[in-house]
């Protein structure tokens, strides 16, 4: 039930343009027994069906600039291959600390900069 509740909150936040994952991952790590890496995997996998549906809707309203997306994807895929291998090899302890630093920067960014 706790997992469903965390999902509801992440879904609510995700709809507002703040990444749902930045809420989902810390919530899973801090309020349940889920370790950092598993929480990240849960976020990546749950993101897929939601993103597919959203992408179909956006494509119909022709908001997606696919030529630019394709250009960025070529570079981003290399990053993703390196990044996820790093995540596998870093210890859960340090990954949690690193994620905390990342979340701190994101939180400050959201609070101070986003509106301007």
């Amino acid at each position, binding site marked *: 039930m706790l997992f469903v509740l965390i999902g*509801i909150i992440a879904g609510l936040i995700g709809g507002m343009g703040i990444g749902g994952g930045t809420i989902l991952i810390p919530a899973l790590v801090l309020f349940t027994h*889920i370790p950092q890496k598993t929480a990240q995997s849960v976020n990546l996998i749950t993101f897929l069906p939601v993103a597919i549906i959203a992408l179909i809707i*956006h494509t119909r309203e022709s908001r*997606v*600039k696919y030529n630019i997306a394709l250009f960025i994807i070529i570079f*981003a895929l290399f990053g*993703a291959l390196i990044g996820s291998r790093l995540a596998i090899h870093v210890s859960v302890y340090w990954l*949690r600390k690193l994620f*905390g630093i990342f979340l701190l920067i994101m939180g400050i960014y959201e609070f101070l900069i986003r509106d301007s």
Partner: protein
Amino acid sequence: MFYNSLHLQNYIFNKSLFGINLEKSWQNSKGDDMNIRNKKILTGILGFLTGICNGIFGAGGGIIVVPTLIHIIGLNEHEAHATALAVILPISAVSAVIYYRNGIYAWDVIYKVIIGGILGSIIGSKCLGAIPPYWLRKIFSIFMVLAALRMIV
């Protein structure tokens, strides 16, 4: 998709892919003080960082790619969010496969979170406007900072 490296090079540094005029979409973007080649190099680097970030943290690629699309490419906010989704979806899929193949997954959690997530987005779309998004963002950014400190310490 790219049948040789020359074709890939052509795509990245020159004009067209399967007849799509790329140059046009880059020229149409605002911020014309930066030349197209520099814009592409910067966008490529930021795209690479988006992948790294999304891979290592399993989230948050949007925080880099959305500002890139707005400030460097010159898309409006709606287009930027939609296009960012098209970028993050395939890279998240690749990352998810790598996590999965290394035995990092939990289906019993995933299906519960998906059910919750669907409910949350329905509630969100019904209640849109009940609380001003400005204040919601402020409140949740405070939660993010608190959670971050709890994770670091």
